[in-house]
């Protein structure tokens, strides 16, 4: 069976989950192709972690199904977990273990463990293997968790808000490690599913994304398509800016002679329309994924 025929890395079908009467995820559909880096973007409380936990069978969906490599997480828990690794937003280790003992302990659950990557990353992160995990900073804990997730070279890497609360250097190293060490061999078989609200630092890594709001998917798009479709257009006129509405404009701001709008598709038509009004200046630029996120949820 070729890769294109084999089941998707992740298939979320109509997922719904409630905490008591509070609905956390409602009828969510997501398909993640193998070898793809998929972003799940949302504000705090949008339902990202709940979705992650359903993928890992830590929560049982109220409705809908979750499949990983075509297997139901609930029924094939061991097989599924053998093929993935997970870095949570809050990392807990046994406090009495050293970094070395922690990695050995975690490696004991894995059939495969790349010790060369482990050695490289321990050096890169300047971690002391003899240090107790209780003495690690938040950044160092995340680094140890990342090493433990990358060394088994799993087919799927689940990252839940991995970089929130970390300093900029640690965040940078984290992403570089995901690109470098994790995608090192056979990038076509390395799938990444990352939930985050720190979108700009993952910008270059994301192939496709879903924006969630209050438990629902509000936008699913390829990253390149999003940057092509969402444009910020600015025009300045010699006289008062015209008071007309533009088709496909998400937001329009006017200030005297200036006009700024965000186009959701159709920016060529809007630019053409504006040009006919003889503006003094007219510019357009793509929105970054973070700006798309803000514009979508505003």
């Amino acid at each position, binding site marked *: 069976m070729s890769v294109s025929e084999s089941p998707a890395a992740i298939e979320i079908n109509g997922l719904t989950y409630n905490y008591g009467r509070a609905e956390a995820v409602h009828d969510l559909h997501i398909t993640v192709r193998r*070898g793809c*880096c998929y972003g799940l973007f949302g504000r705090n409380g949008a339902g990202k972690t709940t979705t992650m936990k359903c993928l890992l069978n830590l929560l049982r969906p109220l409705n809908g199904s979750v499949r990983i490599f075509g297997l139901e997480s609930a029924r094939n828990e061991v097989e599924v977990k053998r093929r993935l690794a997970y870095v949570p937003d809050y990392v807990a280790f046994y406090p009495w273990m050293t970094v070395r003992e922690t990695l050995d302990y975690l490696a004991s659950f894995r059939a495969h463990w790349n010790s060369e990557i482990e050695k490289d990353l321990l050096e890169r992160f300047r971690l002391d293997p003899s240090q107790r995990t209780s003495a690690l900073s938040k950044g160092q804990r995340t680094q140890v968790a990342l090493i433990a997730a990358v060394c088994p070279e799993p087919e799927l890497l689940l990252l839940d808000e991995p970089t929130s609360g970390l300093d900029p250097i640690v965040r*940078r190293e984290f*992403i*570089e490690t995901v*690109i*470098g060490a994790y*995608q*090192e061999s056979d*990038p*076509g078989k390395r799938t990444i599913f990352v939930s985050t609200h720190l979108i700009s*630092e993952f*910008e*270059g*890594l*994301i*192939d496709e994304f879903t924006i969630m709001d209050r438990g629902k998917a509000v936008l699913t798009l390829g*990253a*390149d398509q999003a*940057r*092509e479709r969402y*444009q910020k257009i600015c025009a300045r006129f010699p006289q008062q800016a015209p008071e007309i509405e533009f088709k496909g404009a998400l937001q329009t701001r006017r200030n005297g002679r200036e006009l700024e709008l965000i186009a959701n598709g159709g920016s060529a038509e809007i630019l053409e329309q504006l*040009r006919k009004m003889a503006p003094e200046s007219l510019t357009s*630029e*793509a*929105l*970054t*994924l973070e700006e798309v996120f803000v514009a979508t949820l505003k």
Partner: protein
Amino acid sequence: MLLQINYKSGKPVYLQVVDQIKAAAASGAMQAGEPLPSIRPLAEDLRVNRNTIAKAYTELESQGVIETIPGKGCFLRPNNSPLKKEVRRKLLIDEIDQVVVQAHHLQVAPDEFLNLVRERLEVIEKKKRANEQENV
């Protein structure tokens, strides 16, 4: 050669890599036979997906700009496009048409436009000569 990714350009990231390498080859900033950075360090450096760089290199290879030598990496090829002259002209005409349309909308008159084209050709030639001197 240092690449820059601009997410505000609206151009797909892999195409930005393709265009910048082609520009470096045209201006002589990169010479035939020179190796391209390998995929991993370049991806880490630009903090983009490795697949994006791989896609850019595949595109450059299919356009005949670079060649892959197994086990050694990617290298810039001497400038001889494998495409027939007709096809090359057609590709260029499409690009020129777009610029001509753009010039019309920006109210740049035909004479002024032609002068601009000559000016830009000179700039790139100059860069090329400067790069050649450096390499002597």
